[in-house]
C-alpha cells in the first residue's frame, strides 16, 4: 500500500508546497460502499458557484429519484435533483455545510424507500449543438466535484479553435481524502469514457491526467483504461506535494503554464476538470443520470473509515453512523484538513462539494499551540505555491494596512494553508488573509454605496439649480414683455409693501435651507428614493435641455407645495386686481416691478453662487432689494 508509483518522465515543479502526514491508508483499504438511503434528505439549493437554483416543487409533492427539483437560475447556476424518491417535506432555510454557518434554502425530502428512478435517456451528444450540450449539463446539475462546485457547462464550448491541453485533476493532494483514488481504481473505464466525451467537445489536442505518486493502484487502473484512446493522452505521475491538486498548481506541473490570478486557463489553451466531475459527465450523458450522489471519504475518528457512494442531501449524522462514529469525536471537518471547515452540526445534508468528512478528536488533531510573534523566518514564503510573501501580508493584515496587502497580491492567495502549516510561531496566517480579504470586500461595497449616494446628491443639487435658473429666466422674460407693453406710470412704492416682500423672501430662503438640509441628511439613508431624485445621473446628463416647466409630479412634495401656494396667491391677487381702482392698479404695477427686479438680481447672483452658499446669497439679495 505504501508503494509509490514511478514518477512520470517530465513534470514542472511549482514553487513551495508542503508534505503533511497523508493519512490516506485508513480509508483507501476498502472498496467504495453503497451509502444508506436515509429517512430524510436535506438537499441544499445552492450547490454551485453563482445563483441559487430555483425550486420547482411544492411542499407535499411526490418526487422521483433524479427528478429536477430546482432549476438553474441564469447562466452561472446548476440544477438540483431529488436524490431518491419520496415526498417533499419542506422548502425552507436550513443549516448547510458552509463555514459561515448561515442558513440557506434546502428542500427536505422524506424518502419512500422505493428509490424509484425517473425515465433516463442517453443524450446524443455527438449530433447535438454545443449550446444544447451545455444546457443539458446545466440541467443535470454537473458541477466541479473537487470542491469548488463551478458549473461544468461554463467550461465547455468556449474555445472555437480547440484546446491545447485538457488536464484531468486526479492529484487529490489533501491528506485523508481518498474518494478520487477509489473512484479511479474502481471506475477507470467510465472515467475515460467521460474523458473521451470532453476531449471531443473541447477539441483538446492532448489530455494529461495528473495523479500523485501515492496512488499507484489508481495510476495502473487509469493507464490500463486509456489504452486504445485515439488521441494523445497520458497519465502523469507527480510527486506527492500539497497543493499539487490546486488547478493552477496542477496545470503548472503538467504543462509548465502559470495561470495568473484573474485569468482563465482557457486563455492559455488549458482546461482543467476534476476526475470525479468527468465521471458524472459520463453518467449524465451516457446514462441520463443527474448528479444525485457522490463518493465521499468518511475518515478520522470513526470505526470503519472508507469511501461511500452517498446520496446528495444525506445528513452527515447518517454518514457518520454508517462509518461508526466514535463517541469522543468533538467536531467534523467538511473537506480536507488543509482547506476544509468545521460543519455547524451533523444535521446538515451532504452537498456536491463534500468530498470528505473527518471526525475530529483531540488525539487526532491536538489543539494548536498559542501564536507566537512572527520572526520573519520566511518559511511561509518558501511554502507558498502562489509565490507570495505571507509574512508581509500577515503584517499588513494585522496592522489593517489593506491597501498595501492588495498591492502585494493578497488576492492571489488560494488559501491553501501551506504557510500556516509550516509557521514555527503557529500563526494562523490564512485567517489573517481571509480577514483582510473580507475587509477589502466590505470597504469596496460601502465605497460603491457611498459613490452612488454622492452622485445622487450631486444630481439633485444640479437639478435644483437648473430649475431655479429656469424659473428666474421665465420671470425675467415675462417682465421684459410687461415692460414693453405697460405704461411707465411708476409710482414710488410704499415702504410697507417693500418690507412685506423682503419678509416673504427671507421666509422662502429659510425654508429652502431647511429643505436642502433635510435632503442632505436623508439622502445617504434612502438608496432607493422613489421620487425623481432617483433618476439615473447618466440619463439626466444626457438630457440637460432646459425644459421650461418641470412637471409638478417630478418635484419633491415640498416644492410642489410651494408652487401650489404661489399659484393660489396669484389667483387671489388677480381677483383683487380686478376690484382695484386705477391708482391702486398703478401702485400694484410698481410693486410687481420691484418684485421682478429682486427676482432678476437673485437669479443673476444664483448663477455664480455655489449650492452651499445659496442660503447666504439669498439673504443678502433680499436685503439689497
Amino acid at each position, binding site marked *: 500500500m505504501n508503494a509509490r508509483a514511478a514518477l512520470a518522465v517530465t*513534470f514542472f515543479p511549482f514553487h513551495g508546497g508542503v508534505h503533511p502526514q497523508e493519512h490516506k491508508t485508513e480509508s483507501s483499504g476498502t472498496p467504495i460502499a453503497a451509502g444508506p438511503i436515509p429517512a430524510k434528505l436535506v438537499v441544499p439549493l445552492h450547490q454551485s458557484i453563482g445563483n441559487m437554483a430555483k425550486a420547482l416543487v411544492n411542499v407535499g409533492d411526490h418526487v422521483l429519484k433524479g427528478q429536477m427539483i430546482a432549476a438553474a437560475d441564469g447562466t452561472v447556476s446548476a440544477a438540483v435533483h431529488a436524490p431518491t424518491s419520496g415526498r417533499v417535506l419542506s422548502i425552507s432555510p436550513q443549516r448547510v455545510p458552509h463555514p459561515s454557518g448561515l442558513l440557506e434554502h434546502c428542500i427536505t425530502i422524506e424518502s419512500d424507500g422505493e428509490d424509484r428512478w425517473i425515465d433516463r435517456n442517453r443524450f446524443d451528444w455527438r449530433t447535438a449543438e454545443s449550446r444544447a450540450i451545455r444546457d443539458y449539463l446545466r440541467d443535470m446539475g454537473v458541477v466541479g466535484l473537487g470542491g469548488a462546485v463551478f458549473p461544468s457547462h461554463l467550461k465547455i464550448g468556449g474555445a472555437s479553435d480547440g484546446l491545447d491541453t485538457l488536464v484531468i485533476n486526479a492529484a487529490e493532494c489533501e491528506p485523508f481524502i481518498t474518494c478520487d483514488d477509489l473512484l479511479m481504481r474502481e471506475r477507470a473505464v467510465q472515467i475515460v469514457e467521460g474523458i473521451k466525451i470532453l476531449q471531443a467537445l473541447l477539441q483538446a489536442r492532448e489530455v494529461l491526467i495528473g495523479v500523485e505518486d501515492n496512488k499507484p493502484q489508481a495510476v495502473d487502473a487509469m493507464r490500463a483504461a486509456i489504452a486504445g484512446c485515439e488521441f494523445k493522452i497520458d497519465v502523469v505521475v507527480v510527486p506527492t506535494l500539497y497543493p499539487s491538486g490546486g488547478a493552477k498548481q496542477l496545470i503548472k506541473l503538467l504543462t509548465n503554464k502559470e495561470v495568473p490570478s484573474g485569468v482563465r486557463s482557457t486563455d492559455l489553451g488549458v482546461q482543467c476538470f476534476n476526475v470525479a466531475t468527468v465521471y458524472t459527465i459520463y453518467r449524465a450523458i451516457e446514462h441520463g443520470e443527474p448528479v444525485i450522489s457522490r463518493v465521499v471519504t468518511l475518515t478520522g475518528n470513526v470505526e470503519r473509515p472508507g469511501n461511500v457512494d452517498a446520496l446528495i442531501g444525506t445528513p452527515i449524522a447518517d454518514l457518520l453512523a454508517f462509518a461508526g462514529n466514535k463517541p469522543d469525536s468533538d467536531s467534523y471537518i467538511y473537506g480536507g484538513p488543509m482547506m476544509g471547515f468545521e460543519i455547524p452540526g451533523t444535521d446538515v445534508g451532504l452537498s456536491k462539494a463534500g468530498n470528505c468528512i473527518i471526525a475530529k478528536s483531540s488525539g487526532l488533531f491536538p489543539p494548536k499551540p498559542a501564536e507566537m510573534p512572527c520572526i520573519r523566518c520566511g518559511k511561509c514564503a518558501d511554502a507558498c505555491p*502562489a509565490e507570495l510573501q505571507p509574512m508581509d501580508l500577515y503584517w499588513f493584515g494585522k496592522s489593517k494596512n489593506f491597501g498595501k496587502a492588495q498591492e502585494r497580491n493578497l488576492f492571489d492567495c488560494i488559501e491553501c494553508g501551506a504557510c500556516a*502549516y509550516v509557521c514555527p510561531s503557529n500563526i494562523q496566517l490564512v485567517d489573517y488573509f481571509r480577514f483582510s480579504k473580507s475587509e477589502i470586500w466590505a470597504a469596496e461595497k460601502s465605497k460603491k454605496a457611498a459613490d452612488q449616494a454622492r452622485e445622487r446628491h450631486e444630481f439633485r443639487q444640479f437639478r435644483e439649480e437648473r430649475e431655479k435658473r429656469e424659473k428666474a429666466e421665465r420671470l425675467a422674460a415675462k417682465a421684459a414683455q410687461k415692460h414693453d407693453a405697460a405704461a411707465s406710470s411708476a409710482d414710488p412704492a410704499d415702504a410697507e409693501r417693500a418690507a412685506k416682500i423682503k419678509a416673504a423672501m427671507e421666509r422662502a430662503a429659510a425654508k429652502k435651507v431647511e429643505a436642502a438640509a433635510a435632503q442632505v441628511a436623508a439622502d445617504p439613508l434612502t438608496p432607493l428614493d422613489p421620487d425623481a431624485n432617483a433618476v439615473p445621473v447618466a440619463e439626466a446628463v444626457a438630457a440637460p435641455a432646459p425644459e421650461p416647466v418641470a412637471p409638478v409630479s417630478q418635484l419633491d412634495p415640498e416644492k410642489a407645495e410651494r408652487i401650489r401656494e404661489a399659484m393660489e396667491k396669484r389667483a387671489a391677487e388677480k381677483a383683487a386686481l380686478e376690484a382695484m381702482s386705477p391708482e391702486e392698479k398703478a401702485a400694484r404695477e410698481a410693486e410687481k416691478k420691484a418684485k421682478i427686479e429682486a427676482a432678476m438680481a437673485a437669479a443673476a447672483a444664483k448663477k455664480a453662487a455655489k449650492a452651499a452658499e445659496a442660503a447666504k446669497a439669498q439673504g443678502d439679495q433680499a436685503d439689497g432689494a
Partner: protein
Amino acid sequence: MNTSPFFIKPTPLQVVMFKVALALVPAIAVYTYSFGIGVLVQITLATVAALATEAVCLKLRGYPIKPFVTDGSAIVTAWLMALSFPPLAPWWMIVVAAVISIALAKHMYGGLGQNTFNPAMVGFAIMIVSFPAQMSRWAAPFGVLPQSLDWSAQLSWIFTGNLPAGLAFDAVASATPLDTVKTQLMQHASMSHIFQSPLFGTIGGVGTEWITAAYLLGGLYLLWQKLIPWQIPVTFLAVLGGVAGVFHLVDPTHYTSPLFHWFSGAAMLGAFFIVTDPVTGPTTPLGRVIFAALIGLLTYLIRVFGGYPDGIAFAVLIMNLAAPFIDQYTQPAVFGRKGKQKKAGVQS
C-alpha cells in the same frame, strides 16, 4: 470554532532556537579547549542576565512570561554575544551588554520579532564603543605564550580582577590575529614577518582557526536542517573572500588572503549565525543576497581600512537599517506574473 488548516507542522519556535544553540556547541567546545573556562563563564553570565532581563521586560510590558522566556530567543542572543566577547572580560561587562541587548535592542522595539537591530550585535557594539580597552584585552590561546592563566586564575580575574602573585595580565595577553595584522601593517611590517609570529597557525590564528572551522560545521548543520537560507552565508563569504582575493592578488604584501579573512574573527560566526538572523534581515530571496553581499563588503572595508579590527558587528547593524528598504525593492514576481516563464522540467 477552528479554521483550516487543522494540521500544523510540529516545529515550534523552541525547536528552531534549540537547534541553533546546538549548532554552536562544537565551536564552544573548541573555544573552551583553546582559551579556557572564561568562554563558558561569559556564556553563563550572558544567559542568566539575558533571561532575567527578558523576564523583567515581559513583566513590565504585561506579557505572559513563560512562553516568551522559554522560546529560546534570549538564550541564542546571549550565546552569540558571549562568543563575540573577549573570554576574560570582567564579569559586569557581559552582564551590562546582555541587559542592553535584551532591554534596549529587543523589548524597546516591541520584543521578539519586532527589533530593527540584531540584539547581540547591539550589545557587543555598545560595549566596544564604550570600553574599547577592556574589549580588546584578549588572552592568548593556550600554548602560544610561556605563561597562561589556568581555569581558577581565569575565574578570579573575571570576577575580582586579581591575578596570581607576580603575574601581570600583559604577560598572558595577546591581540587577536586580525588586530595583530592590522597594527603590524600600520608599523610597516611585512606580511611574511607578521605570520612568523607564534600566534598564527596554518591559515588563521592558532586556536581561532579551529573555532571558526567549528562555526562552519555548525553552520552546515543549520543548512542541512534548512533553518537558514543558503544564500546568506554563501553570498557573505563569497563577497568577503572575493574582495579580499582581489586586494590580495594585487598586493599580497599588504593584504591578507581570503582564507585568512574567512577563518579569522567572527567571519564564520557571522556568516551562519548573525547575518542569518531573520528578524533583522530582508525576507526576499534577492534581498537576502544583496544584504549578505553588502555586509561582506562592509566587513572587509572596516577590517582593512576602518578603526576596528573586526567589522561584522558594525556591518550587520548598518545593513539592519537597510533591510526594510531592500525588501521593498526586491519583491519577487508572484505565480503567473513573471516576465518569462521557466522552461526547465525535472527529469527523473
